[in-house]
């Protein structure tokens, strides 16, 4: 295992304090992993800064020593985005966990990157506000990590993904310089660097403060669970509801395998005999909710719906959502390990892709459970397996590969919300040409010319941005670009 030189480690200690530099074997082993199944991680050293100044100090030390740097939030990412390779330095932002300012008049808040997603909503709930993007890991994932992956979640259908809820950020660049991009004032002049940093998977800078948009709680919410005898019926409802002009706050689908697995864990009286169930939530004014409910029930009735269950109070609503959000964990009761896929396809191809997934997993003799953000066409097939069975692991990999290819084939793309990270890096050529990837490499080098921030991620190893492209050319007299 690669280690980082002692004298460099003590330079970090001078910045963050000796207690916040971890160099031991066990510690670096632990920080070599995140929430993914990537096991080639190799962490050289861990530093845990507590402030922007300390982050900047660490970045300066890292720059001087030519170190690769991997920023890390809660380490709940699923594609290996926070996994260090070849002895990289890991900067953990978990100690930066304060909400520094809640600005109610401007409906925003400045938070540190280690603040957990759900903690933001909890902190502003008493003001009738919440933070909208709600990934299923929201009680554990950090807002900094959300920025890195442009995280989604069930409520993104109507409310939008992270990029629409991050107004600005303070970021430390690879050379230690601190810059503030965006903020509560909309549309600053120049290029939308703020927008480009969201979803950049830690490769453009280390975000140290984030200005998040706070959304008012809707006056009315109605949550429904509908079950169907076939997947096609459920998918048709998804399509037709949206075609009718109703965009529910969320529209989630679970298949039979998933319902049967979750029920014993959650005891929510789920329709375990149905082929698929839709969890639909409509919100807005009472009239919006009536109109939405009406449309959903009308469309459902025209598509062989079994039972329509409407949550009668907040407790039942919470129970239904708990069922949905427990999906991944409940799978572990089937087999000890699971591989959670993230594919996104045009909504109109949902049924076709779901059938294909069933075929693929059947062919490889694997157990597959499906839950997904049907409204966005974002599928999460979960393949349960036991990692101690080498053959099964091979079949899981083959199935994953086939699933990705199918999604791309129907006009989808590689990731809806988990990011590319390590896991899907080498699939990028499936959707982008060499030139496309070179352009992305240039976007990254514009922020980090030396390519030391989270290297080896997102872009396949061949994608390079030539030196010539980054100029040294001065812009014309009197202009800044």
């Amino acid at each position: 295992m690669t280690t980082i030189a002692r004298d460099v480690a003590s330079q970090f200690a001078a910045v963050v304090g000796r207690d916040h530099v971890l160099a031991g074997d066990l510690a670096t082993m632990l920080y070599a992993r995140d929430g993914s199944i990537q096991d080639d991680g190799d962490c050289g050293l861990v530093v845990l800064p507590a402030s922007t100044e300390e982050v900047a100090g660490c970045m300066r030390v890292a720059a001087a020593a030519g170190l690769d740097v991997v920023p890390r939030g809660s380490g709940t990412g699923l594609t290996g985005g926070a996994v260090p390779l070849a002895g990289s330095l890991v900067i953990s932002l978990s100690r930066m966990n304060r909400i520094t300012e809640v600005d109610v008049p401007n409906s925003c808040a400045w938070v540190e990157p280690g603040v957990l997603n759900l903690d933001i909503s909890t902190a502003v709930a008493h003001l009738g506000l919440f933070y909208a993007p709600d990934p299923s890991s929201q009680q554990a994932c950090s807002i900094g990590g959300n920025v890195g992956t442009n995280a989604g979640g069930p409520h993104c259908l109507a409310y939008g993904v992270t990029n629409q809820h991050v107004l600005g950020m303070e970021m430390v660049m690879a050379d230690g310089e601190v810059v503030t991009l965006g903020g509560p004032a909309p549309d600053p002049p120049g290029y939308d660097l703020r927008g480009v940093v969201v979803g950049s998977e830690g490769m453009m800078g280390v975000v140290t403060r984030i200005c998040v948009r706070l959304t008012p709680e809707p006056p009315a919410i109605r949550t429904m669970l509908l079950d169907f005898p076939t997947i096609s019926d459920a998918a048709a409802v998804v399509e037709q509801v949206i075609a009718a002009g109703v965009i529910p706050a969320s529209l989630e689908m679970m298949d039979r395998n998933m319902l049967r697995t979750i029920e014993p864990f959650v005891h929510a009286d789920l329709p375990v005999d149905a082929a698929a169930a839709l969890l639909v939530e409509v919100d807005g004014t009472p009239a919006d909710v009536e109109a939405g409910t009406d449309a959903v029930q009308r469309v459902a009735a025209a598509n062989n719906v079994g039972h329509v269950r409407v949550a009668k109070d907040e407790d039942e609503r919470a129970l239904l959502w708990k069922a949905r959000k427990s999906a991944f964990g409940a799978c572990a009761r089937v087999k000890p390990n699971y591989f959670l896929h993230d594919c996104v396809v045009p909504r109109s191809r949902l049924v076709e892709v779901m059938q294909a997934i069933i075929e693929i997993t059947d062919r490889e003799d694997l157990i597959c459970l499906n839950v997904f953000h049907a409204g966005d066409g974002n599928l999460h097939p979960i393949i349960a397996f036991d990692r101690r069975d080498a053959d099964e692991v091979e079949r899981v990999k083959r199935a994953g590969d086939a699933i990705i290819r199918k999604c791309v084939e129907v006009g989808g793309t590689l990731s809806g919300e988990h990011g590319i990270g390590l896991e899907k890096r080498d699939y990028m050529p499936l959707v982008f040409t060499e030139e496309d990837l070179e352009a992305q490499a240039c976007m990254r080098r514009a922020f980090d010319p030396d390519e030391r921030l989270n290297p080896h991620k997102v872009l396949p190893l061949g994608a390079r941005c030539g030196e010539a492209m980054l100029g040294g050319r001065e812009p014309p007299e009197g202009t800044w670009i």
Partner: protein
Amino acid sequence: MSSSWKVGIPAPSDDDLNKCVACGLCLPDCPTFRVTGLETASPRGRIAAMRAVSEGRVPVAGDFTVMTDECLACRACEAACPSGVPFGRMIEAARAQTEAVRTGPGKARRRVITGVIARPRVLRAAAWGIATAQLLRLDHLLPRGLRMATPRITFRDLRTPLPEAAGEGPMAMMLVGCVMDVAFRPVHQATARALVRAGYRVVVPNRGGCCGALAAHAGEIESARALARDRIAQFENADITVVDSAGCSAHMATYAELLADDPEWHARALQFETRVRDAVQIDAPSARLIEGRVAVHDACHHLHAQGIGPEVRRTLRQAGATPIDLGDGGRCCGAGGLYAALEPEMAATLGEQKARAIISTGAPVVAVANPGCAIQIRAHLEALGSDIEVRHPLEIVD
């Protein structure tokens, strides 16, 4: 590479280890992670460390011991884990391992504490010593952590008798315990009266006897097993065994697993377990009507280990009181058995957080059903200048 676990001593099983998929959903519920932000102070990190030991990549010692020592064993992570990883038993097994190889002053300290606690007469003598020292204010010479971890013992507590046998009906034998015996006999008195009201014939052994929880949590498996056998032999003829300490009731419900290696005792333990009750689970009418707010602190061994919580609130409501949740998600107070004495800094951080949460409820009294918690919470409320009373729920409705 072969495993680094010591043979012949319980170790976290590979099956249990394999259940963890490193999703990280346990992190926000882990008090030590919340305080430090360190992956090495999180359940996921501890499990990864156990796996590293299991795969022979690191030894059972050094950093591994530091990590397991720092764990509160509060089991909040178990409730959060969607995969059902049984972290409680894994950390106990890991502790058995680290204990087996521990040397030096840390070892000696643990030996002394658990040795004293397991012996009722020695413990009582030590309690008299502590009470005297506290009266003479000599305890201020102790380091802060140790001082706050030591129960406030008064001579009146020490002279309080154990409850007399009383009542009619099925026989309920009460666990006298160790720390409960020397510092919390008034709670036993209240519990006995509650049992009589509930229609039991109360029988109380005439001296203390540790259930072995502290030994087990400290990794001293053989001591724990010996104490378990003693308690089973002592109580197995009762209709129910009533325990008014959350840590003890939770531990006694695991005697069968502890004695799994011995078929005869395992069978007796299985029988015995079915008749163990925590005192708050007894449906006893309250003795008096009280009004006002009562803050409720949920001991980890109630909330996370046994799912006990509604019972306390029900008992308080029946007495006319308004139970108030602390709003801290049931986070551990930092007492954790011997934790406050062995990991004073973390214990102090969590103890202060807990005390502040209690103060913020505005209630004049907080219901605490575990002696370790009561000691810790009392100490930290006092340190913040609060005069909120700390009482067992059954004392409150007594």
